[in-house]
């Protein structure tokens, strides 16, 4: 699983980076930088929550 953030929607709230700090860090403007590694199955719930809690609904989950 991977997460993809729509940069046109993201307003840099940072919720995703709090939940998924292993995969996402914030740049100096507080916008998320998503790492290249896939999200492990054990973190699927966290990923789902991050997607649901994003205030801008900018996160998509891609299965590949």
């Amino acid at each position, binding site marked *: 699983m991977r997460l993809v953030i729509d*940069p*046109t929607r993201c307003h840099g709230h940072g919720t995703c980076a709090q939940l998924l700090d292993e995969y996402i860090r914030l740049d100096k*403007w507080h916008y998320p930088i998503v790492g290249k590694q896939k999200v492990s199955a054990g973190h699927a719930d966290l990923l789902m929550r991050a997607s649901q809690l994003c205030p801008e609904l900018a996160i998509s989950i891609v299965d590949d």
Partner: protein
Amino acid sequence: MIESVSASIMAPTGPRRLSLGWESAHRPSPSGRVVFVSDLSPRPRLVMPLAEHVAGYGRLPSGLTMRMALDTLRASNLTGRGGAGFPFWKKLQAVATAESRKSPVVIANGSESEPLSKKDTLLLKNNPHLVLDGISMIAGLLGAKSAYLYVKDREAHTAVNAAMRERRERGISELRVTVVEAPAGYVSGQETAVVRRIAKGPALPQFSLDRISTSGVRGAPTLLSNVETFAQVAIVLRFGADWYRQGGQGSDRGTRLLTLVGAVGRPGVYELLPGATLAELLREADAGDPRAVLVGGYFGRWVDLGTPNSTNFPMDDQTLAERKLSFGAGILGVVGHDTCPVVEAAAITEYLAGQSAGQCGPCMHGLPEISTAMARIALSSDVERGMHDLRAVIPLVEHRGGCQHPDGVIQLVRSTVGAFAEEVKLHRSGRCTARGSHTSVLLPPGATVAAGAVVR
């Protein structure tokens, strides 16, 4: 389509230039490979009537299958003329093979959002039938239910409407093309912005996990290409790939439109015939002794003529690619010895930073920082810090936008500090090679920027 006469791609005799209507008024250069077509305010003086158009270019081929069209377009090496330079046959194939229950949509992009470009407006004003031929053929091959022409210029709009009326009056049965007005703004011509506008949304880029070839306008497979590309398609599918690429006699084969601007005696739209070199083009444009050329427009790359860099190379896709250049949006910007190319680039960078749609954080916050860094380098205020900031900020912006805008700016910035490393070194000691009035020559008319203000 225009009356059917043949099931094969035929090659009638007749003029085959895009700027046909102007041929009698403008003679080619002594080498015969560069044609000055129009100055930078092309007027619709010689709109070609349909009868003359058909007499000149010949009728559209009928009985053309998708397979034949793909093979011909592939063999012709025709690439998109809007900026990305993607092989047109691949684009067509992607839409033709997209798995979708919706019928495909065809869009010709004539928004010409690069403010220095005039070639698309010229083409639409003077040869709208050739563009409409291309749209008609592609829409027919795809079985599209809707086709659009996205246009900004008012007079181009009028010319296109007149041409479509003529086609209807002549009883040509083809898919009706809907003309959609493109709003102002640099990003309004970006692929996804066009798709959004056609679906009656705002002309702003949008993010999608899908390519528009599978899911574009309202989810339909969408083929979007520049208007010149459609005109080229109408020529290639008439005369065949061999003729387009290499056949015919001498200069009698495929051409390309370019807008040439900047420090030249004769800025304007030029039609390049095969083999035309940069040197010939510069001579024809009365460029004198230029310092540098920005090839491809604002997202382009520089050729520094201050080094022993020959301009005697043919202007074709392959040769440009070997030199890490590309036609981009078909614009060449010439800088003389009066201005500094680094200052020019800083002014353009600032203009482009102001053209961000403001949707994506890295673009919205990063481009102004990149622009400030470029100004420090250009104006010798703090070159060290400017270079340091570029190295720090570029990785935070690159590949993080929802469209090509930030990456295009980064390409320009990289090319500038790369091609003019010596100039940047001079700036470190507070010097600059510019020796003239410092009037910026590559900013769009009417644009004011702080870095530009210094040079104005």
